[in-house]
């Protein structure tokens, strides 16, 4: 202990710098199946991005004058933000409601949320026609305060900062600075309260973006309740992501798990499944009220109506029942299937509102190019790379004590 203190006093900067450099090196074999797929994909995406910035969007993307927002906005931004909703729901449960049993999930979820938001901001920049003007709504005399997008952009930015603050104690622990950790920890509750408020507003704000597209979005998807629907669905989208991601992490990072982690995880996902099921019920119910209110039952008999039923019955109602049933019989597999189906349902819903049911009557229809898809997938891959790098090194899934104990052995 005393040796540590002395070495820190003597050359704290230098040793920490050396430590960071050593951490940058890969810790495991780089030759994995995931890398064999992801590295070439990301390289191709890099070329596509260069082409996009030299020749304009139409060189790589199929977006049209009538459907101006495509896969990058519809999937990477609108859908991705809903998936990242787990961070605000879990911080609410743990820090506000004091449900300590979910604490082990906080760090990994906040990390995921932070990375997701950062990379979706990147996807947004790719999609902007004049990305160098992105500074305009932030500084200067160009505040479009009547714009929902202005609100969403600011919330996006502030929420990234809030999540960084929430995650910062973990980084401080990794760097071995106890004092920084203690100081940063003091900011957590403020960041959490601020973050939940921001999330409420921008999750619903993403839905509110489409309020002015009345008449351009199919009546089954357009609703004055869109903001509320987007908010409620972000709760079960985020939690389903936590459940689904958790089941993968348990396997991929099994060396970080102790004997009881499986059991602990199953208890947590049962609790989260209940929350999901209740939120999904509220969502489903509000959708029905909306249909009664807007007299849209007649559309159910059309092809778009069938597509709507696939989304609502197949990927909201059925997974909701699966969650309930899974909790009752206590089968983690059922719960994981339900979470995956819920995630697909969210993709369908967000893509429907922003792309598929948007100008559903337009000819020709927008179908993304393979290049758009490669970029979309690559953004996820790079996000996973960084996520993996952090999990291998920082005390995210395990505590600092278990990490040092393992290192000594």
């Amino acid at each position, binding site marked *: 202990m005393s040796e540590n203190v002395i070495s820190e006093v003597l050359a704290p900067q230098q040793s920490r710098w050396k430590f960071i450099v050593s951490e940058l090196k890969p810790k495991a074999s780089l030759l994995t199946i995931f890398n064999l797929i992801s590295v070439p994909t990301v390289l191709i995406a890099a070329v596509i991005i260069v082409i996009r910035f030299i020749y*304009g969007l139409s060189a790589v993307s199929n*977006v049209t004058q009538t459907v101006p927002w495509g896969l990058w906005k519809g999937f990477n931004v609108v859908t991705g933000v809903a998936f990242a909703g787990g961070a605000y729901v879990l911080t609410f449960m743990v820090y506000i409601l004091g449900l300590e049993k979910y604490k082990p999930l906080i760090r990994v979820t906040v990390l995921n949320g932070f990375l997701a938001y950062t990379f979706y901001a990147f996807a947004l920049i790719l999609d902007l026609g004049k990305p160098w003007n992105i500074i305009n709504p932030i500084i200067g005399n160009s505040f479009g305060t009547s*714009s929902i997008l202005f609100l969403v952009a600011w919330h996006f930015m502030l929420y990234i900062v809030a999540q960084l603050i929430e995650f910062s104690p973990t980084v401080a622990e990794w760097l071995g600075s106890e004092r920084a950790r203690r100081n940063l920890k003091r900011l957590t509750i403020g960041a959490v309260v601020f973050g939940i408020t921001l999330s409420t507003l921008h999750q619903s704000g993403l839905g509110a973006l489409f309020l*002015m597209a009345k008449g351009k979005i199919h009546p089954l998807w357009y609703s004055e309740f869109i903001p509320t629907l987007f908010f409620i669905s972000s709760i079960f989208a985020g939690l389903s992501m936590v459940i689904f991601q958790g089941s993968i992490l348990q396997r991929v990072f099994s060396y970080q798990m102790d004997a009881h982690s499986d059991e602990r995880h199953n208890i947590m996902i049962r609790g989260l499944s209940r929350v999901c099921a209740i939120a999904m019920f509220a969502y489903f119910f509000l959708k029905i009220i909306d249909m009664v209110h807007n007299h849209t039952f007649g559309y159910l008999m059309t092809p778009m109506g069938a597509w709507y039923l696939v989304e609502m019955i197949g990927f909201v109602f059925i997974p909701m029942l699966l969650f309930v049933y899974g909790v009752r019989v206590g089968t983690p597999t059922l719960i994981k299937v339900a979470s995956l189906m819920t995630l697909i349902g969210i993709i369908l819903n967000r893509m429907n509102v922003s792309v598929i049911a948007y100008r559903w009557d337009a000819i020709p229809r927008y179908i993304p190019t393979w290049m758009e898809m490669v970029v979309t997938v690559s953004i996820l891959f790079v996000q996973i790379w960084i996520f993996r790098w952090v999990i291998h090194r920082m005390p995210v899934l395990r505590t600092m004590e278990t990490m040092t104990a393992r290192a000594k052995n």
Partner: protein
Amino acid sequence: MSIDRREFLKTMGIAGASLSGVKALGASTPAHEASEFYAILHDITLCEGCQECEFACATANSLPAPADNDYPDSSIKRVLKPDQYSVINAVETSVGEVYTKQQCMHCAQPACASACLTQAMHKTAEGPVTWTEGKCMGCRYCMVSCPFDIPKFEFDNNNPKIGKCQMCFSRLQAGEVPACVENCPAGALTFGKRSDILREAHKRILDDPNGYVDHVYGEFEAGGTSWLNISPVAFDELGFKTNLETKPYPELTKGFLYSVPSVFILWPALLMGLREATKSDEQEGDNHE
């Protein structure tokens, strides 16, 4: 954390003020204000489809003139492009072939301008809705919001522009009328203050009730626009959008926007209160770790 009475009243006061602000701001703009915008009337019964307005538009805005084989024909639908701000279409109707003109409608309360997060789309006091290149991010939210699908984006350009009619704003400032109005040989276009133009449109309908349908397109569409059309046949037969709101489109987002300050004030208070209320006894003794 404890909330004393004074603090509580202060919070409620702020929340109350933001709520009452909703009412004051939510009131719609008085009609006479909107009517002082400039407006243009297109009388479809007079239009001969000669395309002079298109050529004048191209010259005034330094755009390529329509090609020789690009003329109104009822078998095709000509569309607006990033470098074509105005198109004439021939439409076969129950009263024979008529010509429609499509361009930005210059709404009194435009969806695009309220959607724009950088004020690149801007409603001027004179009436035209203008676009400023230096402010635009190219997010295309204006295109998503516009009920008439007017703004067009240069997808094939690495420094793309939004193309749409700006009612020749620079000409208006110089005291001239828009290029299309000035160059219309058939007298189908009339320019003036919106209230005068609206009166003129209704007068023509009253004077010839059999020659026109009793509908001034743009009087109420999207809350009122600065382009007004009168026609010998119903507007849905001409392919005009007839499923539009009669209130301004920005009204659709107002409810949400006004709830933002309330959430911003009430949420943190509620969350902190909940946190205090759910603390267990042992945690209260803790030093907020």
